[in-house]
């Protein structure tokens, strides 16, 4: 019987759009070296040109044309043999810009197949974020710094070929390492990349994830209404105005929290989150005024609490905050929930301020914010760490 394979690459638009495309192309061309046929495509509804928006690219590979066509006769593969997550902050689940609801990164994986995550973290830490499921699967970590670039530039840090090497190990029926090597030699013409693919292949291992193991968060469920139940005129009921809310200790009402759409939370676009030091906040209002998404709740104290269900992590607040180390953007992988920072601060000020020391210890005030990174020049600073990972045998 003819075989059909599907691989999905889960990535951050726009920073990894080209990378994801290069990987799915590589999958098809490497498999083609073994006589297989395939197609590579990005999910059309994702609008992957938008910063941080989770997107998906796919490769479908088959032994023959008719089997391939059967695999193509759907909008996107519902079940895949390998899922690759190119940035570990995506492990919290992804909401496409086209909004299909929050989806777990292992949601499309066939039972027993492999989830590959590019990360510096270990499996137990990643599984705090990756949602649990009923069927077992394999988790493999490809050690590395998430490869981010932009719309017009491509960071050729070998993540593409390293992922191909890891897939060859995880799924030898799809293609062998020799086929990856042939693809790199003929199409990419880079002997160094061949070495990178080999190294990734050699190092790649997986662990078995048992049913029920992982993040227990219940995913939001929703039904799509029929046409006659939908409001007319392409209109949506607006949100009420919002209002004051209670101090967690004194229970006194104060401040202002705008009402927000319960159905659309944008936090899965976030790679960095604002961490607020409420002790140094001067209540200047600049973060609240400048936030493009009205993410800040005005606390009953008059300080500003970034609502982490809403915040998409753009970093404007850090840039406009005039106080040193009051608002700092910290990598999202440090955190495992979206709870209110202000509530934590109110409940135990000392513990909260101590945790800040840990999280923002290396954070100097930024000169210039940039997309995908906390500040300009951060990429150059990552190069030595990336080289160290590459060279470690």
């Amino acid at each position, binding site marked *: 019987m003819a075989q059909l394979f599907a691989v999905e690459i889960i990535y951050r638009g726009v920073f990894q759009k080209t990378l994801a495309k290069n990987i799915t192309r590589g999958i098809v061309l490497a498999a083609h070296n073994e006589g297989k046929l395939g197609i590579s495509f990005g999910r059309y509804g994702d609008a992957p040109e938008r910063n941080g928006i989770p997107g998906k690219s796919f490769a479908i590979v088959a032994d023959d044309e008719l089997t391939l066509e059967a695999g193509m006769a759907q909008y996107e593969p519902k079940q895949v043999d390998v899922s690759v997550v190119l940035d570990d902050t995506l492990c919290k689940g992804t909401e496409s810009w*086209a909004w299909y609801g929050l989806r777990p990164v292992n949601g499309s994986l066939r039972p027993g197949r492999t989830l590959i995550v590019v990360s510096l973290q270990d499996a137990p830490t990643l599984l705090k974020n990756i949602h649990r499921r009923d069927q077992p699967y394999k988790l493999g970590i490809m050690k590395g710094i998430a490869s981010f670039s932009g719309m017009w530039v491509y960071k050729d840090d070998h993540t593409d070929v390293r992922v191909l090497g890891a897939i060859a190990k995880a799924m030898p029926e799809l293609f062998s390492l020799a086929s990856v090597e042939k693809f790199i030699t003929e199409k990419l013409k880079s002997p160094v990349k061949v070495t990178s693919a080999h190294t990734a292949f050699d190092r790649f291992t997986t662990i078995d994830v048992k049913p029920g193991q992982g993040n227990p968060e219940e995913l939001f469920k929703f039904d799509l209404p029929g046409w006659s139940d939908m409001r007319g*005129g*392409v209109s949506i009921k607006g949100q*009420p105005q919002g209002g004051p809310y209670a101090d967690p200790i004194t229970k006194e009402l104060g401040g202002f929290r705008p009402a927000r759409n319960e159905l659309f939370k944008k936090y899965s676009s976030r790679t960095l989150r604002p961490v607020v030091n409420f002790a140094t906040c001067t209540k200047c209002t600049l973060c609240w005024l400048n936030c493009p998404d009205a993410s800040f709740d005005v606390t009953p104290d008059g300080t500003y609490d970034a609502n982490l269900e809403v915040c998409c992590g753009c970093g404007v607040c850090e840039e406009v905050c005039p106080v040193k180390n009051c608002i700092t953007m910290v990598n999202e992988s440090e955190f495992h929930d979206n709870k209110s920072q202000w509530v934590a601060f109110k409940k135990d000020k000392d513990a909260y301020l101590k945790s800040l020391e840990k999280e923002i210890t290396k954070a100097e005030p930024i000169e210039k914010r940039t997309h995908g990174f906390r500040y300009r020049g951060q990429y150059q600073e990552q190069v030595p760490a990336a080289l160290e990972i590459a060279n470690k045998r």
Partner: protein
Amino acid sequence: MATLTKSVEEKKKINEQEALITGAEAIAIACKLANVDVVTAYPIRPYDTVMQYISQLVADGEMDCEFIVAEGEHSQFEIVKHASVCGARVFCGSSGVGWMYAMEALTVSPALRVPMVCMVGNRALDDPGAFGVEHNDALAVRDLGWMLTWVDSAQEALDTALIAYRVAEDRRIFVPLAISCDGAFLTHSQALVQIPAAELVQKFLPRYNRGELLLHPDNVISVAPQANEDWVMEIRRQNYAVTEIACDVIREVYADFERTFGRKYGNPFFEEYMTEDAEVVLLGMGTLSTPVKVAIRKMREQGKKVGFVRLRWFRPFAGPELAKCLERFKAIGVLDRDFSFGSPNLSGVVATEVRSAMYTGSSTRPPVLGFIGGLGGREVTVPDVEEMTEIVFKAAQGKPQPLTQWIGLRG
């Protein structure tokens, strides 16, 4: 032609006024009578006559509305779209390439359920730059959810404008509606028109009530978000639902129009002229009805049994009803003042639609011949009509004729 019902004739004489006005002026007066709230304007012939008349009514203190001269047609239609969503009764219009320049605003209005009423002063699309009538401008929105009607007299223009507000603002409809008036022949020529009393119009035309779709601080809604493939089909289906009942609503409104004003249009969707014993008929839209009717009377004197069907409503297209009407004739000639290059049989838009309606709606399927004529405002002459009729008669006698022919064209 509308005819007066006897019972209300006396009453109406007291209230009605007679005036010698153009089709454009008739529509301007209808806007005044309908107490339109927001009018947007941008000049282009022949539509500009209506904005000229409305601005004069405003300047003279006869009409109270926001009269906004936009910087182009796109803004012109966007402004009324937004005003309509906010609950204003609106009027707008354009011609030819001006209408096409507004196209993006025209395409978004039906899904947003905006009951804007517009006048299209039909004009040839550039190039070449030309003022004369062609129907391709208004027809460009025929598949997008607009309602489209063609009138052939200043009286019908006024009456149809009142009917248009009542139909478009019906809660079951709420889609934009364009009244097409042939450039020059209707927009620029004056005729005697009965202007109904304001009290009667008030009675006929309830206030525009947008209900839960009203964009207002007391009814907070978000309009026109981006949607993916999970939503778009359902939104299109909502507009399809409008087309399913549009003919019924139009019928209701014409009946009430007759009750209120005493002017009777009969079948709202098409007018039949001398069809009772006709063997063949011609069919067309707009002011070409005048030379066609004159030619028919002439041919009738020669014993030729020919009639005319004037299509009033193109969207909705009363397909089954029209097919039932047409199936009793031996052959039909459709005169298109438009073109649809590359269409099946290379016919005009109306001929293609009529054939489509006949295929499913008629048991006899008589030949439907397409004629293209009167383009760019060229006169459709009485001899032209006679020539077409001769061809249709030949087809009726079983002599095959070309499915599409150009009439009044230099060889």
